[in-house]
């Protein structure tokens, strides 16, 4: 991956505490997996920045290499990759997600 693209992605995930790379946007998810994560974040009451990979082919491909994770959605909290749809949903069901999201308050 080119450094300029890596820097761009780094800038995006550091730009907000909670960043979700997804298909579509938080108001109109265009994929069931992305919609699931949006819903979970909404229930958790978390503010988050959405990044629509469908509008940016370079980011869409780059983010997969960035975290060695071949699928979208991808959730980042304070610059750290937290997981894709299955992991986020599981964390939510186990009641672990709030702790990860709310640690930003400290």
């Amino acid at each position: 991956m080119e450094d300029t693209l890596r820097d761009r992605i780094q800038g995006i995930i550091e730009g907000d505490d909670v960043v979700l790379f997804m298909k579509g946007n938080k108001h109109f998810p265009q994929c069931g997996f992305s919609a699931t994560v949006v819903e979970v974040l909404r229930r958790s009451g978390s503010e988050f920045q959405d990044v629509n990979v469908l509008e940016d082919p370079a980011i869409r491909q780059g983010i997969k290499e960035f975290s060695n994770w071949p699928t979208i959605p991808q959730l980042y909290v304070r610059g750290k990759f937290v997981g894709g749809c299955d992991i986020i949903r599981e964390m939510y069901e186990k009641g672990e997600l709030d702790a990860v999201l709310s640690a930003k308050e400290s």
Partner: protein
Amino acid sequence: MLEAEVLEERIRDGLGEVSHLVIRDLTGTKDHWDALVVSAAFAGKTPIEQHQMVYAALGELMAGPVHALALKTYTPESWAKLEG
């Protein structure tokens, strides 16, 4: 067209030891799948690392043929607890 057997073989080969594996074609179109994988190779790994291991085993299949893959990964111990 991808067959479930291909995915199964890749996952078994890639992980080495797989004690339980269920792969389902969610849509009947052989591109949206879910997989339940139980492997001792997951021991001591984070969920992210466990999923990365499965993705790595599937390799280039994740970049095209597999449009969606819902994953559940367990160690034999965590799986036994769930079953129990």
